[in-house]
Each structure stands twice: as C-alpha cells, then as structure tokens.
C-alpha cells in the first residue's frame, strides 16, 4: 500500500480508536439526546394548558368594513337643467346612494344654486334626499332659500322640485319671508316668482315700520 494510504488509514484508525474524538462525540450525544427528548416531551405535554389567547381567528363578515352603499361621494356636485333649460347645480358635503336600483341620493349639508329670471338663487339645507329621476329633493329639517333682491324664505321639511322651481311643505309649516312670519297646514312656494301660497288655518304676522308716519 502506498505511504499516503497508510497515513490515511492511521488517521481513520486514530479517529476510531477508543478515547478518540468520535468516542467523545458519542458520549456527549448519549447523554444529551435523551435529555433533549425529555424536555421536548414535557413542553409538548404542558404547552396546550398554558396557552393564553385564542390563537385561531375567523374572518367575521359583520366586523369587516364592508361598503354598504353603492356610491359615496364627498364634496359632491351635480349639474342639471330645469324645464326651461336654466342650469341648476347641487352641491353637498357628502352624497350617498344606497343601491343602484334606488335612484335616491342622501345628501348632507347641501346647497342648490338655481338661476332664476331675476338672478341666481341659492337653497340650503342640512339633510335631503335627492331623487335623480324626478329631480326632487325631500328635505328634512331647516330649509333656507335666498333669492335675488333680498327675497328670503326659511321653512322646514319641504320638498323642492328643481324642474318646476316649486317648493312644497310636507305638512304643517312655519317660515319667514320679507313680509313676515307665516304658519299654515300646507304651503307651496313658487321660487321663480317669489309667491308663497298657504292653505289651512294660515297665520301671518307682519311687524310694520315702527313710526309709520309718512308726510
């Protein structure tokens, strides 16, 4: 056999000889491995008992943020034309349409700008639901209409028809116009020519000029 072979064999013989490196590794393993398996077994036995939180989770449909409405716009602006072709613009802080089948858009702090014969007019309200088919806004709560020439009409809970420029109260109504404050069972106002028609025990209070003495 060659010299190298003899050297290689002897190195392997030293490695395998008793008290060599291999024996030390086996001695350590002989003691360490059983201890490791015991510790692992102990951990596996006690682990489920000491578990703190619910580790598993289920994706809950209600708690996940599902967009309920079909359309949500903030700072919405809608432009249209009325029967006579005069433009109107409807702006709202937020506009929500529940579903595509229902053409009703819920508006919040809305302002409608209408151009009338005698000039631009604005109509403001906090809540309104705008029916896109009939161009009507059903307003809940206060309604403020400011026309040209200082004309004003403040009332509550009215339906505004943007096509015919008419405003109608749902039921009993109060309001003020430049002439005075009124209340009635039903009210219809024509925003174009500034007329208010009150029906059903109508009341009107006018406070004329204090000293009405004209020469």
């Amino acid at each position, binding site marked *: 056999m060659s010299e190298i072979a003899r050297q290689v064999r002897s190195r392997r013989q030293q490695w395998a000889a008793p008290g060599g490196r291999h024996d030390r590794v086996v001695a350590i393993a002989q003691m360490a491995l059983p201890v490791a398996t015991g510790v692992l077994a102990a951990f596996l036995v006690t682990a489920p008992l000491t578990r703190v939180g619910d580790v598993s989770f289920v994706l809950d449909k209600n708690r996940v943020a599902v967009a309920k409405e079909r359309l949500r716009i903030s700072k919405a602006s809608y432009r249209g034309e009325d029967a006579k072709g005069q433009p109107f613009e409807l702006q709202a802080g937020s506009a929500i349409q529940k579903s595509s089948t229902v053409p009703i858009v819920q508006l919040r702090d809305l302002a409608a700008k209408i151009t009338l014969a005698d000039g631009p007019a604005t109509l403001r309200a906090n809540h309104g639901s705008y029916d896109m088919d009939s161009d009507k806004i059903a307003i809940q709560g206060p309604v403020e209409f400011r026309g040209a020439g200082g004309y004003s009409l403040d009332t509550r809970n009215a339906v505004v028809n943007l096509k015919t420029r008419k405003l109608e109260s749902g039921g009993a109504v109060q309001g003020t116009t430049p002439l005075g404050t009124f209340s009635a069972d039903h009210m219809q106002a024509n925003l174009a020519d500034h007329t208010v028609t009150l029906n059903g025990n109508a009341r*009107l209070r006018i406070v004329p000029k204090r000293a009405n003495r004209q020469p």
Partner: protein
Amino acid sequence: AHDSGAPIDFSAAHIELQDKAKQAILSGDVVVKQANMTLDAARMTVHYTGQIIGGSPQISRLDAAGGVTVVRPGQRASAQYAVYDLNSRVVTLLGNVRLQQGSNTLNGGRAHINLDSGLATMDGSAVGNGSGTTRQQNGRVTGTFSAPKRNP
C-alpha cells in the same frame, strides 16, 4: 290712540304672499288683529311698499271686502268694504255702514274712523258701484242716540 306700528296678526283659510307684486291676498274668514283693533272680513289684500327698512316691511294699506266688521274699544262698525290706510291711520268703511259707539248707532253710506283721535265721521254718499249696495234713504245718515237718564 291706536298704534299703527304694532305687529299685525292675520289669520285666514288661505293666504297668498306675492312678493313681486308687494301684496298679500287673504281669503276665507280673515281675522286681523293689531293692538286692540280687530278687523274681520271675507277677503283682504295687504299692500306694502317695496323697501324693507330695518327688516320691517312698510305696510301701506289693507283692503277688506265682504262683511267687514271693525271692533275697537268703545267702537264697533260693520260695512261691505273697508280700507285701513296705515300711513294716514284712517279706516274708511263703505257700503251700508253701521257704526255703534257706546249705546249710539249710526247708519250711512260711508264712514271714516280716525284712529288717532278715535273720531268717526259718517256721510251718506252711497258707494257708487251699484251692485249690492242699498241706498240709505238716498244718501242720508240715520242714527239713534240714547241720552243717559238724569237721576233726579
């Protein structure tokens, strides 16, 4: 005296406010109250001037028609038509006017009640529009007065 600047309360079955025409039309047993004066009529038109000074409209005239009664402390008048002019503060009554003041009554064609002095002047000139006005003995004024009894 009557304060024509006091707030006026109207109540009626129907009211139409016409801002451009500067008037309001009331119909259906109209009752108007101002201070201590009450005016009832079947129909009424309120005229006001355009300028809104300090937020209060300048009411110029109330035209009442159809069974008008005017009730003031100590005075009660009824007629077919009445015109209450707020500027001159006179209520003019037309068409078989009947005026009761205290226990005295006066009938005639026309009457003017001056709200400042409370003075009512009556004249017999019949209202010229023909239909519905009865001639009071060709325009005379009739009246019954009752003198208080002198206790002896």
